[in-house]
């Protein structure tokens, strides 16, 4: 943590009554092998997860352990996930123009439960849809960035970055909604 002024506290004629503190935290970490493998696959347009044989839970990105069944997960538990799924929950954010906020219009962040083996991606952008038309149960598909625009720079060991460097967001497929009863146990 550091505390540094971002602007002059006041001009030279006035008493100093306010102080700008600029807190800047920088995390550097060595990315573990299973996450590197996940990141490389993402660059190739594939979403890798790890499935726990005991709990049946799917982790994306893979994390090498299942906290529910208390067991290690390894290469054998890697599974390629689908790039389409269903919106199980969402938040509409009305942006306040705080430091670093680049959005100006209300936008949605959604949880997307992937089809097939499963896997839950949180805080996903929903594209090509007015925010007031978003609903739980809506079927969506990934909008991948072109391969040359994909980056794994943000992918770390704690799921930060997730699919952001490769998938721009998710757009509605137009298929019929999935009844909420089918994913009630997976609403995060």
């Amino acid at each position: 943590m550091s505390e540094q002024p971002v602007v002059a506290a006041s001009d030279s004629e006035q008493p100093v009554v306010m102080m700008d503190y600029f807190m800047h935290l920088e995390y550097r970490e060595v990315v573990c092998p299973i996450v590197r493998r996940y990141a490389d696959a993402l660059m190739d347009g594939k979403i890798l997860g790890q499935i726990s044989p005991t709990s049946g839970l799917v982790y994306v990105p893979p994390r090498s352990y299942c906290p529910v069944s208390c067991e290690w997960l390894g290469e054998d538990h890697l599974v390629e996930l689908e790039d389409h799924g269903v919106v199980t929950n969402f938040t509409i954010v009305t942006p306040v123009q705080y430091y670093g906020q680049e959005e100006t219009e209300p936008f949605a962040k959604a949880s997307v439960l992937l089809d097939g083996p499963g896997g839950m991606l949180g805080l996903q952008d929903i594209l090509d849809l007015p925010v007031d038309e978003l609903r739980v149960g809506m079927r969506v598909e990934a909008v991948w960035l072109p391969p040359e625009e994909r980056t794994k720079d943000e992918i770390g060991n704690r799921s930060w970055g997730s699919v952001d460097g490769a998938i721009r967001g998710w757009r509605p497929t137009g298929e019929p909604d999935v009844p909420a009863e089918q994913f009630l146990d997976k609403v995060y």
Partner: protein
Amino acid sequence: MADIPITTHVIEFPYTRTLGPVIGPFLTGLRDGQILGIRSVDGRVLVPPTEWDPETGMPLDPAGLVPVGPGGVVETWAWVTRPTAKHPLAHPFAFALVRLDGADTALMHAVDAGSIESMATGMRVTAKFRDERHGHITDVVFVPEERA
């Protein structure tokens, strides 16, 4: 794309704080090239000044702010061999407790001594104000008195 398996994340929080009747004048003083202490209930001069008496908890009167320094004595120190981007100086320096002339307590601050051999407990240092000041604790740095 170099395959160095290190990732970097940055989190930033900008805060703005009010300074109050004592720290405000203290930082105003720094901006104007002066260091202020405050008289405590028992008559000692505290530097940096505090809003509250450390012994009794009683509020201290801003009228008791008094100029101290600019010279002082190093009470103890630690050498910073490899400064980070967050340190007040970009080259090696000492963090020291400096008891300024006229003060009864020591201020922790940076001493730009050039080398560790130039540092000693008991040495005299003096305040050197930066040309461009913003009302911040880094408006000043200390240097050995003979180099001032």
